[in-house]
């Protein structure tokens, strides 16, 4: 093709109508078709709620959800909305509900950790006055419950009764890479939350875009750290919408312990790092991979960059309001010095990340630049106009971005066309 799509043409994986970033009807359709549709959405890590009664407030798309470890150790998730008047039931970000009961403060309707209604005050009224009918059955007034499954400690939820099991949704390729990071027990190191005035799909494209890396993020080239000998790979899941990038060194001849020294020998930029410990990399997984960025549709990125480990959960608060919740972790057997090393490496990533902060700005620039551009299209043909599923070097292409749109468009069905017609 290689030409711009005509104004008003339907969106394709290579050319997406900018309307998708601004249209509130599309946003509503995404909540139905994607987040509440046939997908598994990331809710958190098992390591965040290790004990019975532990809970964590989270989101599925825009919907507030609570993830709970039940008394018997099982994982539960329910919509944080009282079945009586719709009030928020759980008002804390996290905690432990030792008795396993979640009570709405408004009229004290009480739910167990599974979300089942177990108590209603004055159900029979007071002194024979008021109360509910005899046929009122609490079982019919529970919190809205999600299906919950966990893979290697990453917990996902779904509203869909039909969707395949989580393992099949992730598929063998994605599972292989998740296994890599979660090869031993982890420990959560903390959180940061980044709030972008941009659409969630702009961030989803960004995390799948291997083209922008060395162009937007100028930290490495500025300090002369450019590694020609790097081996890279990009892999897509069958549906197109999950992908993973890895960058590693060729096996054999490289001493990773001297990463900082070597970086300086290869220096091309004029600035010099004062403290190279920032970049130090200590391989701890049985391979040479120093960068692993894995985007699992629709709502999470799993990463290992140097010795930083994190999930980035995408929460969709509105067409132009996206929250990125970073959950940083290390391994449970880390000693104090290893933890300090991870904290030092964490300067590279997150909302203040020396090699990543620009992503927040890029998302907002695209949101601002596409105002009033309904009917006009993006141009996503770097490296081809198809979606290649096979193993390929991560390079100057937008294969995984097209993969995202392929999966997205398939789930959205005719919702985009309906929205375009409605506003025409």
């Amino acid at each position, binding site marked *: 093709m290689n030409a711009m799509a005509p104004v008003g043409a339907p969106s394709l994986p290579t050319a997406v109508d900018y309307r998708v970033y601004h249209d509130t009807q599309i946003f509503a359709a995404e909540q139905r078709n994607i987040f509440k549709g046939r997908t598994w959405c990331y809710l958190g890590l098992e390591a965040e709620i290790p004990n019975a009664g532990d809970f964590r407030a989270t989101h599925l798309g825009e919907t507030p959800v609570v993830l709970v470890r039940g008394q018997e150790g099982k994982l539960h998730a329910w919509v944080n909305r009282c079945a009586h008047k719709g009030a928020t039931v759980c008002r804390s970000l996290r905690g432990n509900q030792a008795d396993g009961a979640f009570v709405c403060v408004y009229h004290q309707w009480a739910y167990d950790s599974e979300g089942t209604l177990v108590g209603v005050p004055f159900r029979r009224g007071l002194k024979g006055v008021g109360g509910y009918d005899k046929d009122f059955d609490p079982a019919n007034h529970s919190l809205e419950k999600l299906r919950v499954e966990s893979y290697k400690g990453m917990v996902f939820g779904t509203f869909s009764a039909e969707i395949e099991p989580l393992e099949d949704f992730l598929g063998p390729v994605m599972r292989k890479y998740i296994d890599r990071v979660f090869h031993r027990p982890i420990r959560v190191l*903390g959180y940061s939350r980044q709030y972008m005035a941009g659409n969630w799909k702009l961030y989803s494209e960004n995390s799948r875009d291997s083209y922008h890396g060395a162009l937007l993020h100028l930290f490495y080239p500025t300090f002369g750290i450019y590694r020609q000998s790097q081996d890279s790979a990009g892999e897509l899941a069958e549906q197109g919408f999950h992908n993973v990038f890895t960058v590693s060194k060729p096996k054999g001849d490289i001493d990773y312990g001297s990463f900082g020294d070597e970086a300086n020998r290869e220096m091309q930029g004029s600035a010099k790092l004062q403290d190279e410990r920032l970049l130090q990399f200590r391989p701890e997984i049985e391979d040479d991979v120093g960068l692993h960025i894995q985007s699992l549709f629709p709502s999470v990125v799993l990463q290992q960059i140097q010795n930083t480990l994190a999930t980035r959960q995408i929460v969709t608060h509105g067409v132009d309001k996206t929250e990125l919740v970073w959950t940083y972790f290390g391994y449970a057997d880390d000693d104090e010095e290893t933890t300090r090393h991870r904290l030092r490496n964490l*300067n590279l990533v997150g909302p203040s990340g020396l090699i990543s902060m620009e992503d927040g700005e890029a998302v907002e620039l695209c949101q601002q630049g596409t105002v009033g551009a309904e009917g006009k299209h993006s141009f996503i043909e770097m490296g081809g106009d198809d979606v290649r599923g096979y193993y390929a070097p991560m390079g100057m292409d937008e294969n995984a971005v097209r993969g995202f749109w392929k999966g997205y468009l398939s789930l959205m069905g005719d919702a985009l066309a309906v929205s375009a017609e409605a506003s025409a």
Partner: protein
Amino acid sequence: MSLVEPVLQGLVDSLNAAYGLCLDDDRLEEWPEFFVDDCLYQVIARENVDNGLPAAVMYCDSKGMLVDRVVALRRANVFPEHFSRHLISRAVLTGIDGDTVSAEASYALLQTRNDGETRIYNAGKYVDRLLIKDGVAKLVSRMCVYDTHRIATLLATPI
């Protein structure tokens, strides 16, 4: 605990006032000089501190790392153009141990981007250890514990 030590109080408050103005005047290259060489500077969410979790969004455990931050910010990083404005409370001295003082102060960091609107960008407190030498206070460690756990867009300029 709050200690009444007028001379030390004056030194700490003077440091904080100069520190805030240095950042707000965009004299970033001078900022590392508020620290001793073997320092620790952190910007960390209050939700982490309250839960005993160590992850910080900035963690610099040497003056060199502070310099690297500034060089990256000047030459590499891309972020919205903005002005910063620090409002820093009078410090509370929480401990004195030889020539080292512990102190805390609240801050509000306002940010004004190109649209001209001034927003409360980050609010929190400084938890500091300072070395008093030759009548001057320098930061041994500064932990910026922020209440505003939702960072707008990104955090480039130090707090």
